[in-house]
């Protein structure tokens, strides 16, 4: 299984670089990529925004409860800024994308496999990896950081909003506190994570879709497996990257 997954991933990445479907002979491949970017990215924006908004509120309130005891409620700004950029933003965005788009990719490719559509592509001499996997994978890798930036923005805003209204913090002071608390490094480490999450979710979701056997039941099982594997892989990657960034950077 791991071997088949690795093979598919390598083949997909090789297709991206070798044939560069982005600038391929026929422009409509680019439109396939755009279609996927809309389906995976643009359509996820409201949900990603909502999730980040809610978590921004939760972070601020939870933090306020603790900082109050120390008499340093102002520190809420630091906490929200730091954890949204470094951890919560990329993480919750990836969770939403996995649930929304990762599962959709597996189900769609799986249904195509069951309906002989992938075999039909093969018989027509069209490489299904190039035709189906590459646009989805590329869209995942490109859109995950974009969604993450958007989510982080909304999360930070939610933290600010709840702090100045419910916690009565000074709005200007909150912002300058936030800016002081984080460095560029924090933003970039979050985006680096998002990039890796995108690649992982894209390859795993496509792999499970392409290997579906046995009708509707197979599609359902593969989708479940895909979501579970995406989540665990994403969390493992998160732990690994966090550790690496902590010790290396």
């Amino acid at each position, binding site marked *: 299984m791991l071997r088949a997954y690795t093979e598919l991933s390598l083949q997909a990445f090789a297709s991206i670089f070798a044939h560069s479907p982005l600038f391929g*002979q*026929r422009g*409509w491949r680019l439109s396939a990529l755009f279609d996927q970017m809309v389906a995976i990215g643009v359509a996820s924006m409201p949900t990603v925004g909502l999730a980040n908004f809610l978590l921004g509120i939760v972070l601020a309130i939870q933090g306020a409860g603790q900082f109050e005891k120390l008499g340093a409620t102002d520190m809420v700004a630091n906490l929200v800024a730091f954890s949204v950029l470094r951890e919560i933003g990329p993480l919750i965005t990836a969770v939403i994308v996995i649930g929304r788009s990762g599962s959709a990719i597996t189900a769609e490719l799986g249904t*195509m496999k069951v*309906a*002989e*559509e992938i*075999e*039909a592509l*093969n*018989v*027509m*001499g*069209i*490489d299904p990896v190039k*035709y189906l996997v590459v646009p989805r994978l590329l869209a995942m890798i490109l859109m995950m950081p974009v969604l993450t930036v958007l989510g982080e923005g909304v999360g930070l805003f939610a933290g600010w909003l709840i702090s100045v209204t419910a916690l009565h913090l000074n709005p200007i002071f909150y912002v300058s506190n936030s800016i002081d608390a984080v460095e560029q490094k924090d933003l970039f480490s979050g985006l680096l994570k998002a990039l890796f999450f995108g690649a992982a979710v894209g390859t795993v979701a496509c792999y499970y879709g392409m290997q579906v056997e046995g009708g509707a039941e197979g599609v359902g099982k593969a989708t479940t497996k895909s979501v579970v594997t995406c989540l665990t892989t994403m969390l493992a990657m998160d732990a690994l990257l966090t550790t690496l960034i902590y010790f290396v950077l």
Partner: protein
Amino acid sequence: MSETKHKSPYALEVRGLTRSFGKRKVLDNVSFQVKHGEILIIMGGSGCGMSTLLRHIIGSLKPDAGEVYIDGTEITKLNDLELAKVRKRFGMLFQTGALFNSLTVGENVALPILESSDVAPHIAELVVKLKLELVGLTGFEHLKPAQISGGMKKRVGMARALALDPDLLFCDEPTAGLDPVMTAVIDTLTVDLTKKLGLSAVVVTHDMTSAFRIATQMIFLFEGKVIAAGTPEEIKANPNPILQQFINGDADGPIPLKLSKDDYLKRLLQA
């Protein structure tokens, strides 16, 4: 068509094809040839390995032993890239049509044209119109596969299979689920193509009327073996009781129908 364009006298030649799944031999030393311009019908009961045979011929499955030659090119040992090249020369009609649901009918037929060569979109559009006219679906370009009936899907599948003007056409149950008139249309189309364009066809079917109407050669598969082969007349005259039961559609005969679960498992698991 001139004979010189072909490398081999046979459009398709299968030699000693053998394949087992577990201990069960699904294909047992299957051999046959199809000359250029011929229509070969593969008959057999459900589960007799016909679809498996077709999947070996188109290169989706690899045999345990034996060779498949497409116009003289052996394909069982080719890599994906070489296989893709050979595959451009044949068209395949799938049992359910296998159309892409996200594309319109027209885009489905255009797909192999646009993907395989640098054809301008307006030329492709023209070819699509011609091919759809061929299967009696003029003006259906803008519908999605979900909006047309099962029989129409099959005809679109036929148009797509013919999109690249193949030398060799494979049909998996082309007439199942079609009404008698449409069956006749597909049959006439297949015969016309072979007569006028020198195309060869391999057709898997259970429909005996249609089979005898179009066949120039027939083979009969039973439990993975070819038990009869010949022209339609020879097949009709073949005294093999299994074959006769199948052709006549009799319920009584040597073909086992009622299997106990144990017998079935035994048959599945034994070589």
